[in-house]
């Protein structure tokens, strides 16, 4: 059981972020944002049926490496987490653990309709309906498994948001850390 005292996530996570948030956004200069935008490394962790969509993205037809995106194996090295399909309770635990092991700034992109409102599994007893209650999501991609073109468009939008500093999912996670943790506790009666 993960008790409050032994936090997996760093101590300063829980602190009130307002003041810190402004500083972070301003001091996170344009060059750094440009660099982060142009070299997004994604965690190679396909949580649902959308994982297969990544194959055409990485190969010759859509080739997301043009934007500098590269699949990395460990969360420590990456800054983009793709939730590619329906999320049930067990997968959510691993997703949260992976998300917390990723260094800031980190972004979450949710594929398909399942993370938005549960999709076809809206009344299943194990599927999470609104991913945003447990994890800050920067971009949703509609479609019950979106086509590669829409995924490339989503990545493009994400890059623009990063450039303008609007992709602040990781800051929201810090700001409302207790709320997110409370929601997560409600779902898993026993963390493990």
């Amino acid at each position, binding site marked *: 059981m993960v008790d409050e005292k032994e936090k997996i996530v760093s101590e300063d996570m829980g602190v009130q972020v307002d003041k810190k948030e402004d500083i972070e956004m301003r001091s996170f200069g344009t060059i750094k944002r440009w660099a982060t935008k142009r070299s997004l490394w994604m965690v190679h962790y396909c949580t649902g049926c959308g994982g297969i969509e990544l194959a055409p993205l990485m190969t010759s037809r859509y080739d997301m490496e043009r934007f500098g995106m590269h699949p990395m194996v460990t969360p420590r090295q990456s800054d983009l987490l793709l939730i590619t399909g329906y999320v049930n309770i067990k997968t959510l635990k691993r997703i949260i653990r992976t998300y917390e092991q990723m260094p800031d700034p980190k972004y979450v992109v949710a594929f398909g309709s399942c993370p938005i409102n549960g999709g076809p599994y809206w009344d299943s007893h194990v599927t999470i309906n609104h991913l945003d209650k447990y994890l800050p999501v920067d971009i949703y991609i509609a479609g019950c498994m979106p086509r590669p073109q829409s995924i490339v468009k989503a990545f493009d939008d994400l890059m623009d948001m990063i450039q303008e500093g609007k992709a602040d999912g990781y800051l929201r996670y810090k700001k*409302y850390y207790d709320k997110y943790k409370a*929601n997560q506790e409600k779902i898993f009666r*026993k963390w493990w």
Partner: protein
Amino acid sequence: MSEQDFVERMAKFPGSEVKLLRKGQIAMKVPADKGHEAAEYLKKMGFTHLVAIEYVDWIKDNEFELVYNLFSYSSKMRVFLKVRISRDNPEYITFMDLWPVAMTHEREAHEMMGIKFKGNPNLTPFILEDWKEIPPMRKDFDSRKFVKEKYDSIPFVEDEP
């Protein structure tokens, strides 16, 4: 051995109703107490592979139906051995002595439908984690209400003003 020969041989089993569903698939309904013998009989006929144990909730007849999905490699035939047990105290004997794989299927049936299998040592929780409500696959389990009460009750994060 064509389907007709199979149907006749199965019909010879006392108390069995046999129906040829379509090419290569036969349904055989057997009373509950004769289920194990029927299974042995079919296994000797060549149905060596227990594909799955399916479970159906006939809530109106207050009965559970266990369907043993058997397949024979030699003759490429599939047979559904159907058995009906009462819904009040759902209990049945295990088929592990014929097919060891039955343990997992029975474990799932126990968790999802609440059917106890005498003789199965491992009827522990299988897929669901610390599940307190009634087995979810039963028809009287209202998943819509469960989802509303468990998931929809959780507030969105930035709701407050």
